[in-house]
Every structure is written in C-alpha cells, then in structure tokens.
C-alpha cells in the first residue's frame, strides 16, 4: 500500500514537473527575445526605426491595443495598454494596491523608483520616452475616461489616486530630465 502511494505521488510530481519546466523555459526563452510575448516579458527592443523628430500626434494610438514597453533597470520589455488623452500618452498598471500585485507588476515599482527611461515600440517604430508617474490631478479624469471607452476598464480617478492603479505618462525624454 505504501509503495502504491509513493508511486502515485511520484507520478503526480512528474505531471507537475512538465508544465513547470515548460513555463520556466518559455519565460527564460522569451526574456532573450527582441520584445515580449503575450504572456512573458521579453528583452531589449532592437528592431525598428528609432523615431527622431517632433512630438508625434499620438491620436493614432487610439487604434492600437497594446504597445511594447522596455524599461532599462532591469532591462526587460512587456505589452501594455496605451492611453492617449489631450495629446499625451499614458500607460496603466493595475493591481498595485496589493502586495501580490506589486510583486506581479514589479516593473512599475522599478520604473517609479528608477530613472524612468523607457523605449516603446508601436507599429514597428521605437520611441524613447520617460516614465513619469501621475498620482493625482485633473488629467486623471481624461485618462480614466479613455480607459473606460477604449478598454472597458472600470478604473476611476479615485482608484488611481488611491494607488490601486498606477498611471505613467510617457513623456518626451527632455521633459523628464528636469528641464
């Protein structure tokens, strides 16, 4: 009886091992790629022209579901929502009101505490940006409205000001260098 139980437990262990190794390998493999996959963070954004020129009219992002966002410390990239409001663009990071959420979305903590340098890739074009967290203010009304209309998100300005959802403006690099 004991031998049978041991065998069953060993079989269960093997069955759990296969998806665990597969997921860990997929995550490792994606982390070396040029950009993220749907599920896993990727590496440095390399392909695509680096945009140099005047600030674009970001309204074209209204038809873009997700963009690739690369932060520098640690160097990694992920897919995020893009929100255009009053000519500026923003990204949102939810579930930040909980410890688990902060562990899951640790990149946002790094972005907030680090230098904020970021590269985004939209439709194959890379843009250098500076992540600037917006914690309060009237701009949040427009951002929350855009989240509702574009992504059907119930996030409100109060949620953002309470820290449950973090909003970062993707500001031009020069703006954020303190000029």
């Amino acid at each position, binding site marked *: 009886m004991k031998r049978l139980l041991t065998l069953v437990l060993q079989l269960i*262990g*093997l069955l759990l*091992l*296969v998806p665990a190794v597969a*997921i860990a390998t*997929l995550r490792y493999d994606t982390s070396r790629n040029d950009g993220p*996959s*749907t599920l896993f963070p990727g590496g440095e954004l390399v392909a695509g022209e680096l945009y140099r020129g005047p600030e674009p009219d970001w309204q074209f992002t209204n038809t873009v579901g997700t963009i690739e966002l690369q932060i520098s410390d640690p160097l990694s990239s992920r897919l995020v929502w893009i929100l255009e409001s009053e000519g500026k663009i923003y990204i949102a990071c939810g579930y930040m009101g909980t410890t688990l959420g902060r562990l899951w979305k640790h990149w946002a903590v790094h972005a907030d505490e680090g230098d904020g340098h970021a590269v985004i890739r939209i439709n194959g074009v890379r843009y250098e940006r500076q992540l600037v967290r917006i914690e309060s203010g009237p701009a949040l009304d427009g951002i929350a409205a855009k989240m509702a209309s574009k992504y059907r998100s119930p996030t409100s300005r109060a949620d953002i000001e309470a820290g449950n959802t973090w909003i970062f403006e993707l500001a031009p690099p020069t703006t954020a260098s303190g000029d």
Partner: protein
Amino acid sequence: MKMKTYLILCVIVAAVVASSVLFIPGVGDHMEQELLGFLSTNARG
C-alpha cells in the same frame, strides 16, 4: 520506484521538456497559445 531512480527520471524529463521548448520550432509558441487559452477561459469563468 527508488528515490534515486525517480530523481534521475525527473532530470531527464526536465531536460527533454526544456530542450523541446527551446529547440523544436513551434513547440514554444504552441504551448504559450495553450496556456493563454487556459488562462483566458478560466479568467472568464
């Protein structure tokens, strides 16, 4: 199964799975699609 044999089997299985994901074209993509489907189905539920 003796523990030593079992652990050797685990190492072999892990190596085969990791190699398949890394080196066989399409396996990684297929697994990710399956995982995505599983997660989205259960998130809806």
